[in-house]
Every structure is written in structure tokens, then in C-alpha cells.
């Protein structure tokens, strides 16, 4: 038994976590623009590529992330081909920084550079902004071939400007209602944002027409957004980032404000320990593979998309997403259990985002590192799988949990910072 019970610190943590929880659930994300990253993302320099996960040096980067960074170098015309891009990168000619250090997130390799348009999402409850790049199934998985980079070019030249014009015309698009509806339509907003994507596509047609987007661009953009099931993931991620960032830096809070992976390391941020990453080697994913690929091909866990789980979506909302149940290898009941299980490691239930299959109860929000360590229950993340080598598109999908070491290290740091020797 410990002698003196420091009730005081428990109360401080309780209050700090309540504050963090309230900020996350009261976030009001609004898509205000789509702009080239160089114009809007704070601190993004020329010859810099932002990437997913905690900071990582070029030599340690996973194969898929290297491939994606090479693609960005070609996309930005800093290099003419794969080989020269590689030489430029290994010579340190391009700065590499973590998205999360720039209020940004990106799916899988998560690469963002100056010319790539990003969603600009403003959290109107707190006043902060967050940024996320487009979601596709090639370049972000490390594919650096021309057809993959062509997708980014179309986004840069046609789709993003057209959508941005429509967004500005309508004065911004509130995302909270779309997210709430989608969660009740079988989405978990990470691997399955289909309903949200459809709602978003439906909302964009008229404003683009009204704002005078040319017929050619309109046709191209509408056929892009109406045929892209994962379209909304980028918006879900930006929304989640804007919510999670508002909960950063609350002294004494043990709530997780980011979970991010780069294929090399899994890292978490904790509100009361802002500025520090708590990392461990990225885990392998328990998943299913597309034809032609198998377990030996998969890279380790990668991407900023676990920001959705950080605010209570994704794996935390699996119980409400029967469409991807076979992905989690089981029955609806098992998926519901994932969602129920997450309640034991979180601070509270969302008042706004609810799941019909769970009796319209809210999703579990505010991962508490104390509860994770005490219960041994790790957050559940559903995710896609990239190849271990550069040059491939998506190869599979599955479930993953963070390494416990991240949470233990965070607790040690918490004890050190707050004098619990």
C-alpha cells in the first residue's frame, strides 16, 4: 500500500481530462477551403515534405513512405526520376518533418508538400485549423510510378481547385452534421467513410455549379467525388485533427491527443505532456490481403489516420459499421464488443456522435493512458496495409493495436514531469 494518497493529483487529472474530453467532443469542424499546402500549412517550407507519424529520418523510413516521398519530389519537380529523387533525399536535399508538427495529418505515408492542395478545416468551437491531404489508393501507399503521381496532378490542377471554389462560394461546409449522419449510416469514418463521402459529394454539386466551375472541370470533379468511397476520410482526419489539437497542452491531462505511425515507429502524444512523442516500433497488422499479396509483403503500421480513433471513430466505432465487419474477422457482436471495450480506456461518451447498434449510445472518446495501462486494453485501430517496399499501391487492410510501451513510457514521463518520483 502506498502511504499517503495524493488525492490532490488525482483530482487535478480528473479535471484536466474532463476539460480535454469537453474540447474534443465540442469541436465544430467546418471545411473552409482547399488550398495548396504551401499557402496555408504553418511552417511548410519549399523543399520540405511532411510525412505521417512521429519524426523519422530518411534512412529509417519504411519502404512505402520512402516511395511516397520520392513521388512527392517528382511531383514538385525537384527531381526528374526515381533515382535522382532518391539521391536528393539521401543527400539531405529535402527536409522531412512530421505532419503533426504542422497542424496537419495525412493518410498512410501521409506526404504533403507545397503544391499539394489540402483540406482546410476550422474548428469553430476553439478557433484552430487543421489540414489534411487527399486520400487515394496509390501514391500514399508508396507508389511512385507515373500513374500514381498523375492522380495527385489531377487533384492539384482540377479537382481541388473546383471543390475549393465551391466551398468558398458556400462560405464553408459544416462537417459535424455529415459525420453524425454517417455514423448512423454504417460508417466508422476511417476504413468505411462511404456514407459520408456520398453526402459530401451530394453537397458539392450545386455550389460548384453556382460558383461557375467550368463544365469540363465540373464533370471531371463530380465523377471523381461521386466514385470515391474513401473521399471523406481526408475530411474525417482533418476534423479529428482539429478536435484533438484543441485538447493539447492541458496540464495534468492524461488524454491522448494523437496516435500516428510512419511504418517505422508508432507514436502517441498526450495532452499534459505536449511536445513529446512516446514511440515504439510500429506493429504488424493483422489483416487480409488483395490478390497477389500475402503476409510477407506487408509493411508495418503506417499513417496519421489513427487520429480518427483518437477522437472516437474508426476502430472505436466499428460496432456501427457492419459493412466492414468481415474485415475485422468476425461477427457483428464482436465488432460491437470492440466499441464497448474502448469505453474502459476512455474518458467519456460523445454526446453528438452515436451508434444505433449500441442503443444510440455515444462513441468512446478521450483515450486515457492510465486506463490503457491499468486495463491492458489497447486502442483498436482499423487500417490499410502498404507494401514493405517502395512502388506499390494498397495491398490489404486489417486491424492493429498500438504497442503498450508507448503508454508506459508516457506514464513514466508523466510521473517525472509532475513529480511523482
Amino acid at each position, binding site marked *: 500500500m*502506498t502511504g499517503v494518497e495524493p488525492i490532490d493529483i488525482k483530482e487535478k487529472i480528473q479535471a484536466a481530462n474532463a476539460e480535454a474530453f469537453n474540447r474534443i467532443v465540442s469541436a465544430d469542424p467546418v471545411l473552409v477551403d482547399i488550398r495548396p499546402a504551401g499557402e496555408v500549412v504553418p511552417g511548410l517550407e519549399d523543399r520540405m515534405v511532411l510525412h505521417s507519424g512521429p519524426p523519422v529520418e530518411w534512412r529509417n523510413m519504411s519502404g512505402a513512405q520512402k516511395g511516397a516521398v520520392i513521388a512527392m519530389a517528382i511531383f514538385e519537380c525537384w527531381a526528374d526520376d526515381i533515382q535522382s529523387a532518391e539521391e536528393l533525399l539521401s543527400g539531405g536535399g529535402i527536409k522531412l518533418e512530421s505532419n503533426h508538427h504542422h497542424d496537419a495529418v495525412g493518410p498512410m505515408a501521409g506526404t504533403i508538400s507545397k503544391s499539394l492542395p489540402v483540406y482546410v478545416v476550422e474548428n469553430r468551437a476553439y478557433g484552430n485549423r487543421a489540414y489534411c491531404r487527399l486520400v487515394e489508393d496509390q501514391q500514399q501507399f508508396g507508389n511512385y510510378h507515373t500513374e500514381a503521381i498523375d492522380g495527385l496532378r489531377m487533384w492539384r490542377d482540377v479537382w481541388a481547385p473546383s471543390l475549393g471554389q465551391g466551398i468558398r462560394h458556400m462560405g464553408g461546409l459544416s462537417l459535424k452534421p455529415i459525420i453524425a449522419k454517417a455514423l448512423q449510416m454504417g460508417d466508422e469514418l476511417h476504413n468505411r467513410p462511404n456514407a459520408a463521402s456520398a453526402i459530401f459529394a451530394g453537397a458539392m454539386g450545386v455550389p460548384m455549379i453556382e460558383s461557375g466551375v467550368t463544365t469540363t472541370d465540373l464533370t471531371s470533379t463530380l465523377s471523381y467525388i461521386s466514385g470515391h468511397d474513401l473521399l471523406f476520410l481526408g475530411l474525417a482526419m482533418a476534423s479529428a485533427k482539429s478536435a484533438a489539437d484543441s485538447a493539447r497542452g492541458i496540464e495534468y491531462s492524461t488524454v491522448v491527443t494523437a496516435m500516428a505511425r510512419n511504418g517505422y515507429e508508432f507514436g502517441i502524444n498526450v495532452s499534459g505532456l505536449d511536445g513529446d512523442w512516446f514511440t515504439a516500433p510500429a506493429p504488424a497488422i493483422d489483416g487480409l490481403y488483395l490478390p497477389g499479396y500475402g503476409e510477407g509483403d506487408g509493411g508495418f503500421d503506417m499513417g496519421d489516420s489513427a487520429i480518427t480513433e483518437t477522437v472516437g471513430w474508426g476502430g472505436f466505432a466499428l460496432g456501427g459499421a457492419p459493412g466492414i465487419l468481415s474485415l475485422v474477422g468476425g461477427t457483428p457482436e464482436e465488432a460491437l464488443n470492440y466499441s464497448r471495450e474502448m469505453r474502459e480506456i476512455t474518458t467519456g461518451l460523445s454526446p453528438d456522435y452515436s451508434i444505433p447498434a449500441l442503443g444510440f449510445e455515444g462513441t468512446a472518446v478521450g483515450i486515457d493512458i*492510465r486506463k490503457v*495501462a491499468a486495463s491492458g486494453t489497447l486502442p483498436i485501430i482499423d487500417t490499410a496495409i502498404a507494401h514493405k517496399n517502395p512502388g506499390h499501391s494498397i495491398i490489404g487492410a486489417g486491424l492493429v493495436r498500438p504497442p503498450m510501451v508507448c503508454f508506459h513510457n508516457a*506514464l*513514466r514521463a508523466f510521473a517525472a514531469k509532475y513529480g511523482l518520483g
Partner: protein
Amino acid sequence: MESKTAIDKLLATPVAAINLGVEDFADNLESQGAWVVHVNWTPPAGGDPEIIAILDKIL
């Protein structure tokens, strides 16, 4: 009359137990018609004493 403590209440009301550990004990209570919830217990913090010591101070 003295006020009733939790012990007095325990002796005066049916057993409603929370079982941590050996599952047989929960089965046994259930077979006697007592109420019981079995906790699927695992060592806290994977049994890491340093982390347990921290958790004891802050959780």
C-alpha cells in the same frame, strides 16, 4: 440503535459478489443461487511494478 455498517448489511442481504481471479469461485457462487459478476482479470500494466506504482498514485 446503532447505525448499520456495510458488514451488517452483508450479513442481512443476499450475497452479490464481484469475483476477481479463479473463475471456479464465480461458478460456485452462481450454482448456489448467489449473484455474481466475474471480472476477466489480468495483471495491471502487464505486471510492470514501476507502472503499477505510478498508476496507484494517479488512478
